[in-house]
Structures are given as structure tokens and as C-alpha cells.
């Protein structure tokens, strides 16, 4: 059951990240907005992260057949996702903290991760939780400014992903409990909530940049 849920989560994460990243990059190509470029990096990273973990499970299931995924593959996938969450939080940080700074608008701050040889995966999960919680709070604050209903869905999605990461991290304390199972269900719900407003973007009305392939 856990294997099935892992596969559903990773496939949904891969597809949702890919679709939102593609819409963002189309937006960037048509408007030149750096915000959309950062969103594209964020969601492509999230998509790649889920894909890496999904590939790890597939290779384990059909090739290695050891009964558990290679730890470094899971850690790599989560690390790539964390970079994606960082870019979402970073975009909010630019808007809120450095609204007029051309330096911070043009140059990315790369995250500094503490390196532990023991449980790097759980450090990435805790960093992801902080970044997602921050992005969710900023998104809900923006809802109070412009009353855009799509922002509620995105804020709920980010909050559920944050909660899922928190429970995933907490399952480290209780490794064989139901917590990890619950965290996967919550993360799938979060990804679906993220996708809802994006599915309403009327791309068919856009005459795409001819140079966009």
C-alpha cells in the first residue's frame, strides 16, 4: 500500500510540477517576467525531484528488487524538491523584503544547507517545511490584498505540502507508524489544490510567441 501511494504521490507531483512549470515558462517567454522565470525553475525542480524518487522506486521494484529504495536516491529527490520550494519562497521574499532592490531581483540567493552525514534527508524535509510554510503565509496575505480566490487554493496546497513534509520529517521519530502514510495522502491533496487554479488559466486565448517551441 505504501509503495502504491509513493508511486501515486511521485507521479502526481511530477505531472503537477511539469504542468505549472510549463505554464510559467510559456508566461516568461511571452512577457519576459522574472517572477514567472523563478516560478518555472521552482516547479521544474519540484517535478524533477518527484521524478527522481519515482524512478528510484521503479528501478528498485523492477531491477534491484531489494525491498527498499536506495537512500541516496530519496535524499537526492527531496533535495531537488527543496530547491524548488526555495525558489517559491524566494519570489515571495523578493516581493515582501526587497520590492525595489534591483540587485536582489536579478541575482538569486542560493540556499545554504547544513550537511550531515547521518540524516541529510530529514534536514531537507525540515528546510522544505519552513520554506513552504513561509510561502503559504505570504500567499494567504496576498489574498487579503487582492481577494483572488485562486490564491486560497494555492495557499491551501502549499500548507498541505508543508504539513506533509512536517509529518514526513516527524515519521523519522516514529519510523514504523502511520505518520508517513498520512503525510503522503496530505501531500497528494496539496498537489491537487496547487493545480486547481492553474487548470483555469485560459492559455487557448494566447497567441504564443512564434519562437516558443
Amino acid at each position: 500500500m505504501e509503495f502504491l501511494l509513493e508511486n501515486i504521490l511521485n507521479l502526481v507531483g511530477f505531472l503537477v510540477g511539469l504542468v505549472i512549470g510549463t505554464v510559467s515558462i510559456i508566461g516568461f517567454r511571452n512577457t519576459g517576467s522574472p517572477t514567472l522565470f523563478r516560478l518555472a525553475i521552482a516547479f521544474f525542480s519540484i517535478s524533477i525531484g518527484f521524478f527522481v524518487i519515482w524512478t528510484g522506486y521503479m528501478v528498485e521494484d523492477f531491477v534491484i528488487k531489494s525491498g527498499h529504495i536506495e537512500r541516496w536516491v530519496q535524499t537526492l529527490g527531496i533535495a531537488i524538491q527543496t530547491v524548488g520550494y526555495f525558489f517559491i519562497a524566494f519570489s515571495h521574499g523578493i516581493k515582501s523584503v526587497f520590492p525595489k532592490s534591483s540587485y536582489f531581483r536579478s541575482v538569486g540567493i542560493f540556499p545554504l544547507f547544513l550537511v550531515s552525514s547521518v540524516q541529510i534527508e530529514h534536514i531537507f524535509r525540515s528546510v522544505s517545511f519552513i520554506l513552504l510554510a513561509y510561502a503559504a503565509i505570504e500567499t494567504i496575505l496576498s489574498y487579503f490584498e487582492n481577494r483572488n480566490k485562486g490564491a486560497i487554493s494555492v495557499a491551501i496546497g502549499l500548507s498541505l505540502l508543508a504539513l506533509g513534509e512536517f509529518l514526513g520529517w516527524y515519521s523519522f521519530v516514529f519510523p514504523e507508524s502511520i505518520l508517513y502514510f498520512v503525510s503522503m495522502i496530505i501531500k497528494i491533496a496539496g498537489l491537487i489544490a496547487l493545480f486547481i487554479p492553474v487548470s483555469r488559466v485560459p492559455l487557448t486565448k494566447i497567441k504564443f510567441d512564434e519562437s516558443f517551441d
Partner: protein
Amino acid sequence: MAEYRTHLKIIGDILSTTRDDLQDEDGATVTYLIRKANISHSRISLILKTLVSQGLLEKVDSRRSNKYKISQTGREFLQAYNTFSGFATNFGLAI
């Protein structure tokens, strides 16, 4: 407190004015755009020059002053801008 507008938002405001809020069919004067888009003369001159060179605005020579009209490319850009502005707003961001 005044809302901070990105460069792209200012361009969107100028294009929206030339599309939806024209004084007459010949286009909008610089003075009118300054008032509607709430931007200084020195800054709008540079932006208008860029928008004309990019084909988003058309410069119409009249006897007394230059006027600006939105081009077909400008209309398409404005539609894309409005769509993706809404998309970014869903994430609590501005483009």
C-alpha cells in the same frame, strides 16, 4: 502607502490605457498617458520609445503633438500579460 509597481506592471498600465481609455481615435498624448499611468515624463519617454521600437505601440504624428496607439502585437502582448498576471496572482506574486 503607494503600491509598488514592477516595470512590467507599468507597461501593462500604459498599454491598457492606449487600448481601453483613449481620448480620441488618433491615440493618446504623452501628457494623457502620464496622468493615466501615473509616471514621470522622463521615465515614460524611455518606456514609450522602447514600446514603439518593439512594435507594441504605434506613434501617430499629429500637428501639435505625438500620439500613441496600441498595435496588434501590443494587444496580443497585453492579453498574455493579463493572463499570466492572473496566474502569478494565484501564487500571491506579481509579474
